[in-house]
């Protein structure tokens, strides 16, 4: 199971990696630090020519270069990428960010908890719901 984490905070990356290791060791978490690199990974450009198509994208909103809103808009406008479930994972609680994310067709919006235990609990719930209960799009046919 391949998940793309788009996140610029080293602390949050570390927490997410550790939480997935505990929740589901079969998850391969691929990490990119900004929106430009995220789109290169998804489009297999530059150093990402061998990148797998992720089953799920976890996307922070506030990032350098290209922010999460722009990444989300690009994914959901691209017919070969728009079926990948894209989950917003952000510290923002602003109603405007929540509404805008759903308008841009985010699959769901989660607030990043600040406490370690809550963070681990949220990752476990993402695993239980999205990777266990939900049906995800089938793998892409080889192109």
């Amino acid at each position: 199971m391949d998940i793309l984490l788009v996140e610029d905070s080293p602390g949050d990356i570390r927490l997410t990696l550790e939480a997935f290791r505990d929740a589901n060791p079969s998850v391969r978490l691929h990490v990119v630090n900004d929106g430009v690199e995220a789109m290169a990974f998804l489009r297999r450009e530059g150093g990402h020519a061998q990148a797998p198509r992720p089953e799920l994208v976890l996307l922070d909103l506030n990032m350098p270069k290209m922010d999460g809103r722009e990444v989300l808009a690009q994914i959901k406008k691209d017919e070969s990428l728009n079926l990948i479930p894209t989950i917003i994972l952000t510290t923002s609680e602003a109603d405007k960010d929540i509404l805008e994310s759903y308008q841009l067709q985010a699959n769901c919006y989660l607030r990043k908890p600040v406490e370690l235990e809550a963070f681990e609990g949220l990752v476990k719930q993402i695993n239980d719901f999205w990777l266990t209960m939900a049906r995800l799009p089938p793998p892409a046919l080889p192109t």
Partner: protein
Amino acid sequence: MAIEVLIVEDNPGDVRLLQEAFHNLENLIHLHLAEDGVAAMAFLKREGVQSQSPRPDLIILDLNLPKMNGREFLALIKADDNLKMVPIIILSSSEADADVSLSYQLHANCFLRKPTQWDAFDAIVRNIGAFWLAKTRLPQQGVGA
């Protein structure tokens, strides 16, 4: 504040199971029912006898429905700037990969297989409760309306 959930489902047995499973949740939920896509659209657009209907916080949608099927309904909602922010969970007995892919391409927020056993029905609804109604931030009621 109660969470408004619209269930779009034509099978009375499935409706009954969903009602019972939602009733078992601790969240305060108002369930609304529509038996096909046309009725669901009237509910969302507050047409006819539905003029007082609330904006749902979440829609649970079957794919195979009379009159207007779930795919068509999904496509219409997700193309409508006033409605597309409402999360839609597909709950379908279809096992076809094409239905899963198409649903996500039409911007369904998630796809769940409709179980055949009561226990599994209850588990699915408990998971919807734990994830969508407790952890997920849903769009604010009425914003953008």
